[in-house]
């Protein structure tokens, strides 16, 4: 690591950020699609849930690839640890919440 790399990070400017714009539009579209499926259509509850969970996972991938530079970076081990910890936390909150609230529903 040379001395310069340790300094305050420099901003890079490389053309129009198409990737981010597409990501933003897709995120908005998927969010409103999920809202429309839940509110606008009257599908059976488990079908609605299946579709919107699918859309949520798709949107998570859009976030990872369009905004969060998952394909970049020099040390993939950091990415892997981060994603594994994220999966762990997501599992804890979703499964834990369902388990805890099952009693009250």
């Amino acid at each position, binding site marked *: 690591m040379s*001395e310069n790399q*340790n300094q*305050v990070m*420099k901003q890079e400017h490389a053309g129009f950020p198409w990737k981010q714009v597409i990501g933003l539009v897709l995120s908005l579209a998927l969010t409103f699609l999920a809202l429309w499926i839940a509110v606008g259509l009257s599908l059976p509850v488990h079908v609605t849930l299946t579709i919107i969970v699918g859309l949520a996972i798709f949107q998570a991938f859009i976030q990872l690839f369009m905004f969060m530079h998952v394909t970049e970076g020099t040390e993939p081990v950091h990415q892997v640890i981060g994603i594994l*910890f994220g999966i762990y*936390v997501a599992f804890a909150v979703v499964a*834990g*919440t369902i388990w805890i*609230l099952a009693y009250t529903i």
Partner: protein
Amino acid sequence: MIESIKSFLGYFFVTGDPMIYGADASIALASIGIVVVLTYFKKWKWLWEEWLTTVDHKRIGIMYIIAALLMLFRGGVDALMMRTQLTLPNLHFLNSEHYNQVFTTHGTIMIIFVAMPFIFGLMNIAVPLQIGARDVAFPFLNALSFWLFFAGAMLFNLSFVIGGSPDAGWSGYAPFAGAELNPGVGQNYYVLGVQISGIGSLATGINFLVTIIKMRAPGMTLFKMPMFTWSILITSVIVVFAFPAFTVALALMTIDRLFGAHFFTIAAGGSPMLWANLFWFWGHPEVYIVLLPVFGIFSEVIATFAHKTLFGYAVMVWSMVAISVLSFITWLHHFFTMGNTAPVNAFFSVSTMLIAIPTGVKIFNWLFTLNKGRIEFTTPMLWALAFIPNFTIGGITGVMLAMAPADYQYHNSYFLVAHFHSTLIAGTVFGIFCGLHYWWPKMFGYLLDERKGKWSFWIFMISFNICFMPMYFLGLMGMTRRMYTYPAGLGWTPINIVITIGAFGMGLGFIIMAWNIIWSAIHGKRDTTGDPWGGRTLEWTTSSPAPEYNFAHIPEISTRDPLAAMKEGKTGDLRKSSKPYEPIHMPNNSGIPVIMSGFMFIAGFGFVFEWYWMGIPGLIGVVACMIARSFVYNDHHYIPVDEIEKTEAATGRLS
């Protein structure tokens, strides 16, 4: 017309209590005083250029600490008001509604506007210096984080004179915190003030995660980092993963309250318990967000003043990693009694007890570091030494509370109140005071007075025990938290008197510390060496206070505790380099963070009162600031070599 203005003012301002009028007057006088002093001494330009627009991590750290100390004073006054009310049975110093507001603001302020910003302040000051960096990874974002915290804190604090304070406890449980049972603006202040500062906290977590991963000095591998930096790395990970749960919970509550949704209502298929669930999914990791950094501080201070290497470095790291993993699966223990199945309670009971293991391992590591050390009893060391037994008591009572069947007895009694104060005061508060005394010379270039520091330590620490030890027994005798008064004849009165004496003693200790800060600013011993304590890590290799660029040459690291290794003659002089100076690349100051946070404050205030004509333009202002920032291309400058030479010569580094 006049009637409608009168009724508006009666709704807008909090009226009817002489103490509130006193607060109104003192806020007005203090504001006028600040404006007059700044104008008289022509300091407005200095304030704007040197502080409000700064992106220097050291100055941002100092601003965090000043704000946190002010908030500590406010939260402390809340505590003393509660203790005054509870000294004797059937007092009417505060009425029930006012008492509810005071305990709510006390809790929220102490956690979100004292503990977190104080820790963020210390990590801003110490972490870049400890890893040999010149600033954090995203200096602009760092300034924005601070100003968002400040806007959130000011919005929250405005509630007690304008509109009325929140009164549903710091945990803001639904359904009581919902629109139906809690109309008015109080809870809106809570959800919006905390939300705005929470955005800042999340950004700080990301910022320090990237800083520590990416900007360490050459040679400093992860396992050569100082323990405080390790604790901040792990804390940052917890911040990044825990805060979104709170952000979502607060947003849902805001939608419930402002737009009539039913996420947390009993009606229309909502679930009040979901609030408790989401709140504590953030709330329990939050406990470790404010504890792990002070574990790091104690590790630094104990090693420095025992004049020994930290015992069990790798074990210390791995126990923090274990705590961070376990901290996400214990949250239900905050509501064992809310009605869950037995397997749920059993699981969370066991996971909570498990977290005591890595914490206990750390306690033993500190003890073994002290073992056969040459211990120097400085003020920071006294805080660190007092932490070990006092915090252990809090930890052990935590394990008692973790047993779900027993918790049905302890739950929401003063036993619980005593437990979490034992951990948060003996842990977090002792830790931030320890860090404050330890890094003070690095922040300002002079030391806090040892004699006054020791007086404040002993008075605060003894009073803390007078205050909270009896509280365990009061809880076992049946007094529950959040009761604003109690009848005579239950045997609680003598204990309550003792507790109040302890609380005022802690106030006295804090006043002595404040006096010490003022006295030392005038008479304090200068630190000319940059290393007043005989430190072991990189922050003590640069001058005190550190120059804008921190290090003229980025140091090259080959061992842990590089400064200690240098003093023992194992490595070359870190402070000297034969290489010529090169121009140093630094970020430019920016006014956008403070302006953007001002718009955020306006938006927040508008939404608190549901004045959309005010809230929406405020948000538009926030977006406009983001757009303005994205067109700033000239965002850095270089410090020329002759200026570096001049600065280094002034500190005696250049021979």
